């Protein structure tokens, strides 16, 4: 219970911080923001890595490996495509 509570402090701080940070992003960058932040949400990868490396039961292993693969698509695809977009932004 208190563990969840401590985690709620983190959640609250990150939420306030997220609002402050994102509200400063100009519309020009909203698409890269979307794909870039989306890549960050692939952080769930680290949870799936532990699962894929530690589960015993075959079904659990399959689920975990699938999770690793999905998260990797999200991460790699997200960062790469964002970079592709941002590379194109240039000043006069």
């Amino acid at each position, binding site marked *: 219970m208190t563990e*969840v509570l401590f985690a709620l402090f*983190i959640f609250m701080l*990150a939420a306030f*911080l*997220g*609002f402050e*940070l*994102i509200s400063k*992003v*100009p519309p*020009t*960058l*909203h*698409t*890269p*923001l*979307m*794909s*870039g*932040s*989306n890549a*960050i*949400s*692939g*952080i*769930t*990868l*680290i*949870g*799936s*890595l*532990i*699962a*894929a*490396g530690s589960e015993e*039961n075959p079904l659990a*292993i399959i689920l*975990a*490996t699938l*999770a*690793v*693969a*999905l*998260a*990797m*698509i*999200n991460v*790699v*695809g997200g*960062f*790469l*495509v964002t*970079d*592709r*977009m*941002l590379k*194109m*932004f*240039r*000043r006069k």
Partner: protein
Amino acid sequence: MRESLIQVAYLVASALFIIAIKLLNSPRTARLGNGLGALGMVLGAVATLFHQAIGRYEWIVLGVAAGGALGTWMALRVQMTAMPQMVALLNGFGGGASALVGLGEALQKLPHGDPPPAWLLTVGLSILIGTATLSGSLIAAGKLHEVLTGRPIVLPGHHYQTAFWLIVNVGLMLWAIIAPTPLPLWLLTASSLLLGVWMVLPVGGADMPVIVAFLNSLSGLAAAATGFVLQNYLLIIAGTLVGASGFILTTIMSKAMNRSLWSVLFEAVGGQVSAASAEGRTVRQTSAEDLALMLSYAQSVVIVPGYGMAVSQAQHAVKKLLDALQKKGVDVRFAIHPVAGRMPGHMNVLLAEADVPYDLMWEMERINPDFPQVDVALVIGANDVVNPAAKTDRSSPLYGMPILEVEKARTVVVLKRSMNPGFAGVENELFYKPNTYMLFGDAKKSLEAITQALTES
């Protein structure tokens, strides 16, 4: 000690994510920011590999290789115009992964003793949000890619069915908390899949971007919920940042479209391609040659791109026209409406792809006061975002949405294929104004013709 070092790596990774998002607030630093985000991800992942629970690496290698290859392939071959569906897909995969991790962790822990209810609640949320994000995103991507119809798909009693599935989900979560066994969790996974589908099916094509941002927010929250399950602060921080980001984008878009998230989700609009009522009224047409002449004598030209530019992939043709006009000494700027195209910042990305400098792209509030001094406003495949009904016609679904006031320019030229309406499905009085000329045809072809006429003259 090892655990401490891993936590230190997570701490640094969290800070990198925060800095990454901070740097995304300017085009000059955004690429560095994205790189730092990727660095944070690598740091977090590599540190995790040293976790003592990890006993073997074969499945990890398999998953990483498969996912990495697929992700790279998708990222490198996607067209810039297909960005909305790409983001939708990625959101879905992220959400799915979060749900799988949450489910897996619960299946593993349940046999060993009674977990506390608060923890089970976070497991339930992780599965619910993650799975609904997955299925909802797949539907959204299908609609955006036109594999599914862009029209709202409304089944009989649709909203009651959605509400039903929501209630079922809450019930299953309660069941899992009261009697922690795998069964309710599996059922929850299945019914959350349905909930995601039901949620997105009735949303029309025009509202899709709002849904994509909303799913973006959900995919972040799913990761955060999984972070609660694993007591992993890095997951909570990163997930919550993304949740906030998606939420803000959703709000900005809803506002710019003059809708609420509620109405987007539950009041199907858009896609109803109500063939234009020509009603015998006539519009003035112009030709590429006449237009080229007009442009070459103009001092100030403002280009207003819209969804049509994306459809016809005309961004490179636009850039060529820009070059030709600049060579003739014409002052050319771009006016970007916040919801032009099909996702926020869509036009900026396309124009950037074609090498248009971003300091030529003006935001709506900044350029609107200048229109009376503009000689030619060149509207390329935009429709709703320049529809004056938004300001004058209380009965229009667009009423109240802020628009680009092109009608104040000395001359307006609209490039589109027909008199068909835009995605809101409403008529546009702009086309009938005395200072408006239409140039019918595919935007890319029209633009090429204009540029050719310009350079030949």
